[in-house]
């Protein structure tokens, strides 16, 4: 684990080289939420509640979803896909490190960098929206929320790694990645809270892995789930964690077998 910690620190230092770029990425992450929040707040004209969400809850939903990006989200698949596609993976295979862990630790370092860089922006947004934001209370729900954030982060990483590993078979996976992102935005609760979708999609989302990335922590934070639903959600999330882990191992093993490392 020590070597990965060293890798993390090196990546953290490297990330500091591109401060302006990182700051712009922070804004890239915030803008879609600004867009969605602007539209929803307009839709609230004369209403106190939409689909069980009041104005403060919806504002908090979008504000927190952008903040959660640094704890749950990331861009793991692009890096891995590029390593595979350009044959760079070979160089990483010769190191005494697991390339998949390398990708994860490098991205986590980038996220830590970006998170600290984003704090002034978030403080500013927080200041502007403070009357419309719901603050967490120090109770069991907060513990559930933090647990969900941790597990959701793992589900997200595994999903991203799977998309990246598909580059062993599909030379240009950028389109596939974008297709995945469209589905993920819809069923992961990025676009709108899942309760806002047609019933058939909302029901389906309980059984797919996407809900257990962004939506679950957000729903827990806003106390939108009953006791039974929370238990069911954690059970399904654990099921997906195990399944996705097995899938990652299998794809990586089989991918390496057929890997030809073009151009290296």
């Amino acid at each position, binding site marked *: 684990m020590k070597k990965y910690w060293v890798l993390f620190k090196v990546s953290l230092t490297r990330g500091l080289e*591109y401060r*302006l*770029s*990182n700051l*712009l*990425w922070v*804004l*890239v992450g915030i*803008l*879609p939420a*600004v*867009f*969605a929040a*602007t*539209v*929803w707040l*307009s*839709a609230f*004209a004369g*209403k106190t509640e*939409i*689909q069980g969400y009041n104005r403060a809850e919806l504002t908090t939903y979008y504000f927190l979803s952008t903040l959660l990006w640094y704890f749950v989200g990331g861009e793991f698949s692009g890096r891995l896909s590029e390593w595979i596609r350009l044959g760079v993976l070979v160089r990483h295979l010769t190191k005494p490190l697991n390339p998949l862990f390398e990708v994860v630790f490098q991205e986590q370092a980038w996220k830590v960098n970006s998170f600290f860089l984003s704090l002034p922006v978030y403080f500013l947004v927080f200041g502007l929206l403070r009357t419309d934001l719901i603050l967490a209370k120090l109770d069991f729900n907060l513990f559930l929320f933090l647990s969900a954030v941790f597990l959701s982060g793992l589900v997200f990483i595994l999903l991203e790694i799977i998309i990246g590993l598909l580059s062993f078979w599909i030379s*240009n996976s950028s*389109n*596939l990645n*974008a*297709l995945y992102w*469209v589905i993920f*935005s*819809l069923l992961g609760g990025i*676009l*709108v809270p899942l309760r*806002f*979708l047609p019933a058939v999609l909302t029901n389906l989302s309980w059984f797919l892995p996407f809900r257990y990335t962004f939506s679950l922590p957000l729903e827990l934070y806003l106390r939108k789930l009953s006791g039974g639903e929370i238990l069911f959600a954690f059970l399904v999330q654990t099921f997906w964690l195990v399944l996705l882990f097995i899938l990652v191992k299998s794809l990586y093993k089989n991918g390496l077998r057929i890997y030809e490392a073009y151009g290296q």
Partner: protein
Amino acid sequence: MNKLLPTLVVYLKLNLKIAVEYRSDFALGFVRHTLELVLAVVFLKVIYQNTQRLSGYNENELLFLYGTFFLAKSFVKIFCEHGLVRVSRLVREGKFDFVLVKPVDAQIVASFMGVDFRDLSKIFFGLYLMVYSLKALNLEVGLLTWLTFTFLIVLSTTIYYSLYLIVATFSFWLTETRSLESFFSELIELGKLPRSVWPAGARFFLTYFLPLVFLAAVPAEAILRQVSWPTVVGALLLSLFFLYFSRRFWLFGLRFYTSASS
């Protein structure tokens, strides 16, 4: 300027060959771009399940605005965006020399070297949304209104192109512009909302400093509401200003190209 059309034809042919060579990638890309547009409309549908009007716009009116936005964006997306995005990489690798030595203005080459046909989906989808929503609205639109709309779309395309050129010009100073381009792409998306959705300060900024309201909101208003002649003249002046400024900025940026590593 007389080399613009032949250059465009050459790059059209070249990029068409590339698109045909990677057919499955092209098809997947086309589906992907269409799905991204569908996702935007799904968002809209979800909103209108919960409200009748959004800043004075009903669902079909906003669908028309979305259609206008996709259409206005599509021309720059298809013909210029991929080339301009490539400028950053060429500068970083010192390969921009190959653009400079061509017997055509570097801005023309940079603007048209990366035609991407996958974005044709935006034209089809944009037109579909416009026709669908106009039918649903049961609006009768006169010839003069259509001409005004077309003129405003040309101006909107000019503004969008100029803004993209300004972003691409930063490649001469910054080593990494992917974040800037992504930021710009996300910012542009704000242009598919009606003007009335913005608070007064933001509306002023989005009209005069970063004229995103002219991308789709103003052209769509020509059909859905009424656009005054001063607004049309204002759009013309703004687009001319941005075209001129982006050209000067591009030429200024070119002076800083040092052909690193080549």
